[in-house]
């Protein structure tokens, strides 16, 4: 039987923080046959959404994951969470705000810690923002006004492929019509593909972004750099960059994990935020973190409005407590403090340091995910779920805080439930 093709337009892509919302997806039955306007990663997600799906709920019996009914899995999961004294509920960045809201309610009900992928991504950025604040904007402001775009410690052509085309140097803005109206600066330890198309590239020595940012602040302030070179960059070149920044009309600094993950971590961000703040006394300058997952910004927002804090929220005492380093997932796992975990919409075992993964594998672990993943391999209970933005709709937040409603374009494969449903059912059972 041939299925009629249906084309959905204005679909919101649910891959990275760009949340491009002009995607056109053609569907035949349950198969995606064509994707227009999506980048390579987006296309891969839409076209392959049916791959490696978990068909039924699973419960580990005698060391192996075996098929189970939804009700059995719910009972098992509820029992694990109820028994736990300090459960960790982690992930959340690859699902909708509606699901995350239930996640907060669930964490509060079981007295656990709710943390999300910010913890290994832009957590240091949040820490920097607590101290300095942030001078930022929505992406359209960059498109319309920016004549200087700086990418520092990130490689958008690989991780946010449509970023430059939709929002920055290759886009068409009201006051900047084309590429030649903008200057592109890249700062990185590698000469990445993004660096190759830059007008000005600074190769910084590994682990020395802090020093380079400090020197740049000195130059922006108008003082002399005493050294011949800093972080592998000649002083003259640093001063040149400072001049470029001061003399622009509207500059924006996008930064990524090159700054958050290297030694210095939140202190690197502290300097980057301060540099941009300093620049505002000379010109218009803004900064924006390149958020990786399509709704990590959403988790931060939901978590903040519901609990006051954007991640690493400890609700074990019945009220929100926040202390990164103490209430963050990796630290909790390294110290072996949590006695159960629920992972939703994330794959920490594929990205956490192995020592943290080991503890995750040792404790009772519930996972909610559309696909088989490294985390499902070590789980005790697994719930298959619907993909947000493809099989179920939901609110998502772009990296600049703009909110979009992702669409449902196919019925969920195998009739799997949405995260919202699964979490609500779990909560209901726990409340008894």
């Amino acid at each position: 039987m041939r299925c009629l093709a249906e084309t959905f337009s204005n679909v919101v892509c649910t891959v990275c923080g760009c949340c491009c919302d002009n995607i056109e997806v053609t569907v035949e039955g349950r198969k995606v046959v064509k994707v227009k306007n999506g980048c390579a990663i987006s296309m891969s997600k839409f076209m392959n959404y049916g791959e490696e799906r978990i068909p039924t709920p699973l419960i580990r019996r005698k060391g192996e994951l075996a098929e189970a009914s939804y009700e059995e899995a719910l009972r098992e999961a509820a029992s694990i969470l109820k028994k736990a004294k300090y459960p960790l509920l982690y992930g959340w960045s690859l699902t909708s705000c509606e699901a995350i809201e239930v996640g907060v309610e669930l964490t509060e009900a079981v007295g656990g810690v709710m943390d999300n992928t910010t913890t290994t991504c832009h957590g240091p950025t949040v820490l920097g923002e607590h101290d300095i604040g942030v001078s930022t904007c929505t992406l359209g402001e960059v498109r319309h006004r920016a004549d200087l775009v700086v990418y520092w410690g990130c490689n958008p052509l690989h991780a946010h492929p449509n970023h430059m085309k939709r929002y920055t140097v290759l886009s068409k803005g009201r006051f900047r019509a084309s590429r030649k109206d903008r200057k592109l600066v890249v700062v990185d330890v590698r000469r990445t593909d993004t660096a190759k198309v830059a007008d000005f590239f600074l190769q910084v020595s590994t682990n020395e972004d802090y020093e380079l940012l400090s020197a740049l602040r000195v130059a922006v302030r108008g003082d002399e750099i005493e050294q011949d070179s800093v972080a592998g960059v000649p002083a003259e070149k640093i001063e040149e960059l400072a001049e470029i920044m001061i003399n622009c009309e509207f500059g924006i600094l996008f930064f990524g994990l090159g700054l958050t993950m290297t030694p210095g971590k939140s202190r690197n961000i502290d300097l980057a935020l301060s540099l941009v703040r300093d620049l505002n006394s000379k010109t218009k300058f803004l900064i924006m973190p390149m958020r990786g997952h399509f709704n990590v910004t959403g988790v931060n927002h939901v978590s903040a409005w519901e609990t006051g804090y954007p991640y690493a929220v400890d609700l074990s005492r019945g009220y929100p407590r926040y202390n990164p380093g103490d209430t963050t997932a990796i630290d909790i796992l390294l110290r072996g403090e949590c006695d159960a975990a629920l992972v939703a919409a994330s794959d920490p075992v594929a990205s956490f340091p192995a020592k943290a993964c080991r503890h995750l594998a040792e404790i009772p672990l519930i996972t909610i995910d559309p696909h088989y993943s490294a985390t499902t391999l070590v789980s005790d209970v697994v719930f298959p779920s619907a993909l947000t933005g493809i099989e179920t709709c939901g609110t998502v937040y772009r990296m600049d805080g703009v909110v979009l409603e992702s669409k449902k374009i196919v019925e969920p494969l195998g009739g799997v439930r949405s995260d919202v449903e699964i979490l609500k059912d779990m909560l209901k059972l726990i409340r008894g």
Partner: protein
Amino acid sequence: MKTVWEGYSMGGIKVKLLTGRSLDQGKSKERGKLSEDYVKCVAVCEFNKEDLEAFKISPGQNVRVSTDFGSVVVRAAASTQQLPKATVFMPYGPWTGIVVNPETHGTGMPSLKGLEAEVSAAPSEKILSLKELVKQFAGR
């Protein structure tokens, strides 16, 4: 065979290890993490051309990457992103999880970039699949 938990000096070449996203890693993770494709795109250590020559490692050959925190076998590849001298790059994934520094320094963020590492040719050693890798460190 020694377990991946023992980080030890093999007399390998000292390098700085970077980890991060790559386009292939991004595309393959959407195709499924249990696939062969994922291993191919993610269990990789990228070198710049000069280092490959100097270290006498050929692209496609298996190499062992070791840090104070763990040791893992992956496939060597030539970097398209022009690395600095004696610096290698591994895309995020469970293979990098073995070798990165879990220490968060009170920030919650482990140390995932700019690590001191050793690499050595390991032509006869096998790259573990995701399942095998997870079984080794997680015991299941």
